[in-house]
């Protein structure tokens, strides 16, 4: 039994799973932020007695929140759908490594129709125009030999337009999925950096609230004397 690849599949099939991964990262960052920044102020309640301590605690909290916010900001970026056009493949900085892969093997992406998206679009326009002219010629041509040639070339033009259209569509879908892949990979790095900043904020906060002990009450002098 031979396997025939399903033709209805698309690079876009990976997009929902990448978005799910981004949601997991987002949820994890929010949970860690809540655990660190939600419980620390409660634990340190009653430990802030001076303005300096309050400022340091505030700086720690702001730093921690900034770290969590940083992670959430960039991860949420992966959930925003990018706008992909044929020009994106040539210009979008998120597709730099895809362009490098294509440059290594252009026929795998453009087939026999050129070496760039512009070539594909030009070839499609040409073959579409040829097909239109052939259709018009077929309507007025009377010679049987020429009619059969026109019919043959019309079928070839239609096949070419269809093949080029498929190549363009696949490249668009691949570019779109690749943008999200790049956003997700960047979100992972920023989440790591944001977690480090959040941890730093918590350390600052705990150091500020734990360094200062509350004023120790001075014991009142005893009224009784012990016999020596």
């Amino acid at each position, binding site marked *: *039994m031979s*396997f025939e*690849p*399903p033709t209805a*599949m*698309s*690079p876009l*099939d*990976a997009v929902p799973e990448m978005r799910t991964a981004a949601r997991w990262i987002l949820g994890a960052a929010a949970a860690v932020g809540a655990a660190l920044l939600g419980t620390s102020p409660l634990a340190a309640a009653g430990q802030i007695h001076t303005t300096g301590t309050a400022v340091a605690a505030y700086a720690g909290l702001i730093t921690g929140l900034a770290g969590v916010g940083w992670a959430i900001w960039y991860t949420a970026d992966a959930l925003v759908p990018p706008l992909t056009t044929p020009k994106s493949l040539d210009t979008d900085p998120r597709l730099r490594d895809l362009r490098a892969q294509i440059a290594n093997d252009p*026929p*795998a*992406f453009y*087939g*026999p*129709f050129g070496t760039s998206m512009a070539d594909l679009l030009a070839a499609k*326009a*040409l*073959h*579409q*125009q*040829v097909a*239109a*002219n*052939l259709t018009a*010629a077929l309507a007025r041509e009377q010679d049987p*030999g*020429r009619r059969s*040639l*026109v019919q043959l*070339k019309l079928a*070839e*033009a239609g*096949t*070419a337009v269809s*093949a*080029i259209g498929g*190549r363009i569509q*696949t490249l668009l879908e*691949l570019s779109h999925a690749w943008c999200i892949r790049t956003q997700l990979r960047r979100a992972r790095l920023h989440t790591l950096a944001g977690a480090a900043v959040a941890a730093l904020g918590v350390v600052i906060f705990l150091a500020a609230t734990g360094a200062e002990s509350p004023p120790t009450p001075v014991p009142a002098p005893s009224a009784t004397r012990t016999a020596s």
Partner: protein
Amino acid sequence: MTTDAVPELGAIRFADDGTLEVYNGIEWVKYEPPADNGYGTLFRGQEPPAAHEPS
């Protein structure tokens, strides 16, 4: 003075040898669209199913 009209892109004509020519924007050439042999990429969703999975 007369000038030859520049044909539009994709214009067709029959050559003297009976073949069909097309204007590609630069010159008249025989119309032979390249065949796409399907050489391309394999991406997620097109992998064959694992051996233990029911087909």
